[in-house]
């Protein structure tokens, strides 16, 4: 069969004679630097687009695969479908106006954006957030991590056709979203951690309802352990798939669970503790085999550890105290020239904000470092070679990528 493009997808071309800014790049001469010389007309290869309209793709991105038989010989990640230009938009918003839009950068786990942005602003403005606010921030980040992992487990099982896990985990994720809702009033975008502190304290009876939710999550997790992790077919699919050599960890900037599954105990919570993590009792979860199964297992155990951390936080956090530091009038808030980088360990790896100020009331430059940026692009394009078509979705999900943080 000759080359047939997937009809839901269509590559781009630029009509000639369009006026172009000299600095904008001229793609008409773009050369595809591929490792292989692939002659599509030979009938041996097939070009296959997966996504953006594809249930096996994590969100709105696409993979351009060249397959030979059932085997992928080359894969390219295409992103940009969700680009909103956050980094540009924030340059024309005041520091407090940036606060409601940062959480929109990463949808399934928005709280890390709020924390990193708030902490970066506080550091450059020389503000210290109160201790009780730090405890609540840690609580929210750990709750968000549990949410994100629950979403992931459903996706990982679903990528191999085990849909029922997704039903169960989404059910408990909804319970967790209820806790978020009573805390912040919103399910997805909480907008709770603002520069200077947090918006509010815990509502009455929150600890007890939280405990009930955690017990329910643990119960479902033990079911997930039986049905997913001890399932012979799941093991058959996941064990040995998508092996990341530990030597690739540093060159490819791999962080978070993929790195920990390779036996490298990379965890920002331990390496450069922030918020109240130094006072909490935990050890980074690591694995050894560095395949899809180990990554899923590391995340499952990390989830259980987060449940334990939430319990520790609720038991030890101060019940009284201020929630907001004194911040200047937000309408005339100017921050002196400086630059900083704030990082945190989100469920996918190292999440960071690079903030540059120039003494005006607006950020000079904000750069978001999402873990998917390195995982889904360079690493994915390397891992996907020689992978079976059937395993592409499982492999992509196992890197836990969220495209909005790649393109912002």
């Amino acid at each position: 069969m000759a080359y047939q493009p997937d009809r839901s997808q269509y590559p781009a071309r630029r009509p000639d004679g369009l006026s172009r800014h000299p600095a904008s790049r001229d793609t008409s001469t773009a050369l595809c630097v591929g490792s292989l010389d692939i002659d599509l007309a030979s009938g041996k290869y097939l070009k296959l687009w997966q996504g953006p309209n594809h249930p096996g793709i994590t969100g709105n991105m696409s993979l351009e695969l060249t397959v030979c038989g059932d085997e992928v010989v080359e894969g390219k990640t295409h992103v940009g479908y969700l680009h909103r230009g956050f980094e540009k938009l924030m340059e024309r918003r005041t520091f407090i106006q940036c606060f409601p839009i940062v959480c929109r950068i990463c949808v399934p786990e928005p709280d890390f954006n709020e924390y990193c942005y708030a902490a970066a602003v506080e550091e450059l403005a020389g503000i210290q957030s109160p201790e009780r606010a730090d405890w609540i921030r840690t609580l929210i980040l750990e709750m968000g991590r549990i949410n994100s992992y629950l979403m992931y487990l459903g996706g990982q099982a679903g990528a191999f056709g085990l849909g029922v896990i997704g039903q169960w985990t989404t059910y408990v994720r909804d319970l967790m979203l209820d806790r978020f809702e009573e805390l912040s009033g919103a399910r997805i975008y909480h907008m709770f951690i603002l520069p200077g502190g947090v918006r509010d304290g815990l509502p009455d009876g929150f600890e007890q309802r939280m405990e009930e939710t955690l017990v329910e999550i643990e119960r479902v997790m033990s079911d997930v352990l039986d049905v997913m992790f001890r399932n012979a077919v799941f093991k058959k699919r996941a064990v040995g798939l998508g092996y990341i050599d530990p030597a690739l960890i540093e060159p490819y900037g791999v962080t978070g669970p993929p790195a920990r599954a390779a036996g490298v105990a990379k965890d920002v919570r331990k390496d450069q503790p922030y918020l109240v993590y130094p006072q909490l009792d935990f050890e980074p979860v690591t694995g050894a085999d560095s395949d899809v199964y180990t990554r899923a297992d590391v995340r499952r155990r990390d989830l259980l550890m987060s449940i334990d951390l939430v319990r520790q936080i609720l038991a030890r956090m101060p019940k009284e105290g201020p929630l907001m530091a004194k911040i200047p009038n937000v309408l005339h808030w100017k921050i002196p020239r400086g630059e900083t980088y704030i990082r945190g360990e989100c469920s996918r790896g190292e999440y960071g904000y690079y903030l540059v100020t120039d003494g005006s009331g607006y950020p000079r430059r904000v750069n978001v470092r999402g873990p998917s940026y390195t995982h889904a692009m360079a690493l994915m394009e390397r891992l996907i070679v020689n992978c079976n078509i059937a395993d592409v979705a499982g492999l992509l999900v196992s890197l836990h990528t969220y495209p909005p943080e790649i393109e912002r």
Partner: protein
Amino acid sequence: MHFEWMMIPYSLLTLFIVVNYGLLLTALMQKIGARVGRRYGIPIWQNYIDLVKNYGLRSSITHGVMFYLGPVFRLSGGVGLLLFVPTIYGSVMFSNLSFAGDLILALYFVFFGALGMALGAGESGHPHAAIGVSRGLSQMTAAELPFALAVFAVALQYQTLSITEIVAAQQGAVLHWTLFTNPFAVAAAMLSFLGSMMRPPFDLVLAPQEIPIGPPTEYHSSYLALMQTNRVIFPIAKIVIYMNLFFGGAASWPVFFLKVFLIYLFSLFVGVAFPRFRVEQSIRWFLVWALPLGIVAIVLV
């Protein structure tokens, strides 16, 4: 037994009952599957509405003649299979045209629809359809092998190829069923049955996360409605064969409904609890587990 004109309205009546039962049964199965996932599930009459909607869509496009004929072949495979096996044992009304066809014809019809579909989906030109077809045909070859062996074992055991006579030989007591007289053949056939029901771990033809959704990707409107109709007839027709060969047939409609439901439920239970195999894993599984059972069944007979 010879042909009478009255048999044609009788078979159409069977077809009508089976279509309605199939629509309700598939919805019920979806509901049971949904209960595993803690959901309430679709309304029991949802399949009727979907069918009407798909027939009622205003536009449809075609990719060529075979694209038209694919669903037609598929449906005729399902209907033909149903019509040439006796639905209710001992009933003149619902024995259909089974006097004219034997086991070999039934086996042929099992394959026929899938082949027609492969041709039609191939013409749709979608790469996912092409991959789905190649997956489907290779898996079907592996999965039908143990079934064919089991069928031969049964045919040898009863020394006949007529389905009616096989059913007749199993009447009398539950212990007369092939299930108890030749358990290896039944086991081989039931494993093969899993492979043909399009449920995990053997749903690699549809595989929504891998090649959404395989051969039917390009099908829509009335083509899809035809395929939906087939999707409710064909599994039941196949289950009728299994029921007749291995589980003593059915002497009345209530028994028929119950047995079909239980056999269908078997594939559902396996389906909700397992992820999907890869192609080569699936084929290897059939060759390693189901095929030896079929050979043992033949040897023992």
